[in-house]
């Protein structure tokens, strides 16, 4: 503990005419309570105990793991891990005082630039809690920027937890979520979209590459959406895909979001993560979250500060664009560091490696005897497959072989899809893919 000794506190208080008891005499006796938790423990004991408890986990290092579904295991460059320990950035607050926080502000400005470039839109904020809640804010923004429209259309192949998040974000704005069926290619059914969309539709919300690893036909979706006067919001669950694929803005998305965790830190049991959020210029003042702008200082040198704060809760209160306050700034710094460490070529190679691994995985699973419903054209780094036996039973069987063969679709999707959704990234070894393919052959 880093606290002054009680005798020092008593002495300090005495100098201003107080005792320690005086300080709490304003708390009425009937509501006074002491803490009903154990007494403090020495640092080394807490540390050892937490370390040994964590050691009970079976990690990605202990078994061949094919889990994605919104949290992705990518290699994090050493520069990023180095930056994760810089105390000045780690222990700063939100940079309200611009003059003494130019470094953090510049980093966040770089992050905004990278986000806008990746998603191919005009402007971006300094980040949201995670990709899933960023998508919730995007859909809410679609509702707020269309008058008298209350319906959001989204394909049924969005993972059910992310669907629940969307529902929570739009409930207060009287929004409703309607689902569209999946096409035989594993993407959004365009005919169904055309039938369902009308002047009640505020927005169409799409994920790409979607939960089955498929690339959605955003061109056609954007056209249908805009003809109906609705907003297109697009979420990219793994940002590394945009090292190969065009960003949503390229196709005309009005608002785009993504999950930046893959480039900031390992899965860490799902959090913290990092939401990316970008819009076109027309919607700049309606966007949620913190923004950093370029300006100059009293010496006319380049400088940065938080800007357009009148959108935010601390000024506009109940009329704010969002309630967001603390977000994920530090992860934005780490995300920026990873991308800068990769550079243009390195980042494109990273995406290429993921697509290659994903494609190889799909091909090997099919060869080994699994049913792979959506294989052509090739997708990104995730694939839906049905093993020869029941998915849960197969996952149990795989445990004995030190393999986690993917997420049972019925848990992730809850939409009647069977099978497992497997993910391969640049970290997935050929041996791991061999082991999974062999296991499928064994149980066939």
């Amino acid at each position: 503990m880093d606290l002054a000794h009680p005798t020092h506190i008593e002495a300090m208080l005495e100098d201003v005419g107080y005792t320690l008891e005086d300080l709490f005499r304003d708390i009425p006796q009937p509501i006074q309570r002491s803490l009903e938790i154990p007494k403090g423990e020495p640092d080394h004991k807490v540390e050892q105990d937490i370390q040994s408890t964590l050691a009970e986990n079976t990690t990605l290092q202990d078994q061949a793991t094919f889990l994605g579904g919104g949290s992705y295991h990518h290699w994090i460059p050493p520069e990023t891990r180095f930056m994760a320990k810089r105390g000045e950035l780690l222990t700063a607050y939100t940079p309200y005082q611009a003059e003494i926080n130019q470094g953090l502000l510049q980093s966040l400005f770089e992050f905004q630039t990278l986000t806008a470039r990746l998603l191919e839109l005009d402007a971006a904020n300094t980040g949201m809690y995670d990709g899933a809640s960023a998508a919730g804010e995007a859909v809410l923004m679609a509702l707020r920027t269309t008058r008298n429209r209350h319906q959001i259309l989204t394909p049924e192949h969005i993972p059910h937890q992310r669907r629940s998040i969307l529902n929570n974000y739009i409930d207060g704005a009287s929004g409703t979520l309607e689902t569209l069926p999946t096409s035989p290619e594993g993407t959004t059914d365009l005919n169904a979209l055309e039938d369902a969309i009308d002047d009640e539709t505020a927005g169409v919300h799409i994920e790409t590459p979607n939960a089955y690893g498929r690339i959605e036909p955003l061109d056609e979706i954007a056209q249908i959406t805009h003809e109906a006067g609705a907003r297109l919001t697009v979420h990219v669950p793994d940002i590394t895909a945009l090292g190969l694929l065009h960003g949503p803005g390229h196709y005309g998305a009005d608002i785009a979001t993504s999950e930046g965790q893959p480039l900031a830190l390992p899965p860490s049991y799902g959090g913290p993560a990092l939401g990316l959020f970008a819009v076109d210029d027309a919607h700049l003042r309606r966007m949620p979250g913190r923004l950093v702008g370029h300006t100059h200082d009293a010496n006319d040198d380049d400088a940065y500060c938080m800007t357009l704060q009148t959108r935010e809760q601390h000024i506009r209160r109940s009329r704010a664009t969002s309630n967001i306050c603390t977000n994920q700034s530090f992860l934005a710094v780490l995300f920026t560091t990873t991308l800068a460490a990769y550079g243009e070529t390195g980042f494109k190679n990273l995406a290429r490696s993921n697509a290659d691994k994903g494609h190889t995985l799909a091909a090997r699973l099919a060869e080994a005897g699994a049913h792979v419903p959506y294989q052509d054209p090739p997708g990104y780094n995730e694939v839906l497959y049905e093993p020869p036996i029941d998915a849960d039973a197969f996952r149990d069987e795989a445990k004995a072989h030190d393999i986690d063969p993917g997420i049972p679709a019925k848990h992730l999707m809850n939409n009647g899809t069977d099978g497992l959704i497997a993910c391969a990234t640049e970290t997935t070894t050929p041996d791991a893919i061999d082991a999974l393919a062999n296991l499928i052959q064994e149980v066939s």
Partner: protein
Amino acid sequence: MDPDTFRQARWDEPTLFDLDEGPAPEGPFDHETTNEANLPDEHARETVGIPTVPRSRLTRHLTRQAQMTFGVDTGTYPLGSCTMKYNAKMPEPLAHEPDLLNVHPLAREEDAQGILALLYQLQEALAAIGGLPHVSLQPAAGAQGEFVAMRMVRERFRDLGEISEETRCEVVVPDSAHGTNPASAAMAGFEVLEIPSGSDGCVDVKALEDAVSERTAAFMLTNPNTLGIFERDVEKIAEIVHDAGAMLYYDGANLNAILGKTNPGAMGFDIMHFNVHKTFATPHGGGGPGAGPVACTEELAPYLPVPRVKKGKDGLYVLDDGDERSIGAVKGFHGNVGVLVRALAYIRQHGSDGLTRVTETAVANANYLYQRIKDAYPAPGEALKKHEFVVTAEGLWEENGVGATEVGKRLLDYGIHAPTVHFPINVKESLMIEPTETETREALDALVDALLSIGDEAPGVVREAPFNTAAGRVDDVHAARNPLLTWDQVQRDQDGS
């Protein structure tokens, strides 16, 4: 106290985009590529726009950015309502343990028993600290915790059949509430009714009685309040709110003031959030990540976000999805786990005795500080403060145009971060000061000396501060009139002019 000893590093540092050397023939890290996947051409992009910077230059860039940033590790940070305490170093590496980082959130429960055990321990600890029995760790930040709570209250009244355009449609907040309170309530679909505080800065009990009715779904309050004053009438407030059939919500932002003295459950609150990054000292990261767990009564428990960690009969930990009453999820997976593990480590390190001392020391520091500066910077309301207080610089402002903003900017020259300025809005030229328990008496005295010395300095100098920081006074008016949020927008703006 001399403002001319502190100097922040001042690098004329270009952005990554100015340093961009253009795409290199090969990337720095050789990930295997086989070129087996041929994605459809219409989706393939030629360029992404990631800058290519030599690794040595990149490291210097990052180091310089760190040097031009001010954290609790750098100096005193009395930013009111933010609880910028020194972040104990012991919990930090635990969040970077490979045995935590490398667990996937959708791993089999049997593969995640270690982390589930820790999350369970934290749920139990928070329930005890809050005096409310049920906890969800999912919300990513305090504001998201508020939003969750308002969603839960709405679903509860929906189930009771009480939600209509006339009933349970409104959330009441004091005018001194943090902006997140009304914003969260509005996001959850409630109308917001702000009631004026009494002249002492506390809830005007009569005004509250008049404001609540069957229209009211909840009253949102923090105690001690925004002025750092304990609401002695809190039991009466709870009674009024409950008699109207509404819920009482506790904003956990000021929890650092009451650990081991009272708790939200004892005060009569139905639901609350914790800011674990404030109270339990996880570093603030320049604006996150934090975590905002929610605790509530038995009545509201079925509405909590899921999944939650439960202990099964066989002693194994399981993830429980609740039933159809749960609001579901507000963010992906299980919460900001890395932040939550730090919080658990901090709570265990301190324990009941340590956390009580945390509060005693934080409140002692705030009162010492206030007594030392009150002649120059008086505060409204009663003299006894809790962990923070709000003073006014109105005297200096009237006299020579040195207001809260100017005092804050000049403090930076002394190597001390500014307090929160111009909040709350019900105090003119307000400076909200929260020293926290981790500042030594020496540091408190330095802050006192700086604040008093600023009052004696030449107003012309103070008004132009700061001078010793990486940038001089930043033109935020220009930034807001001409928003340039990306490097590309800056280039276009400069080409156009």
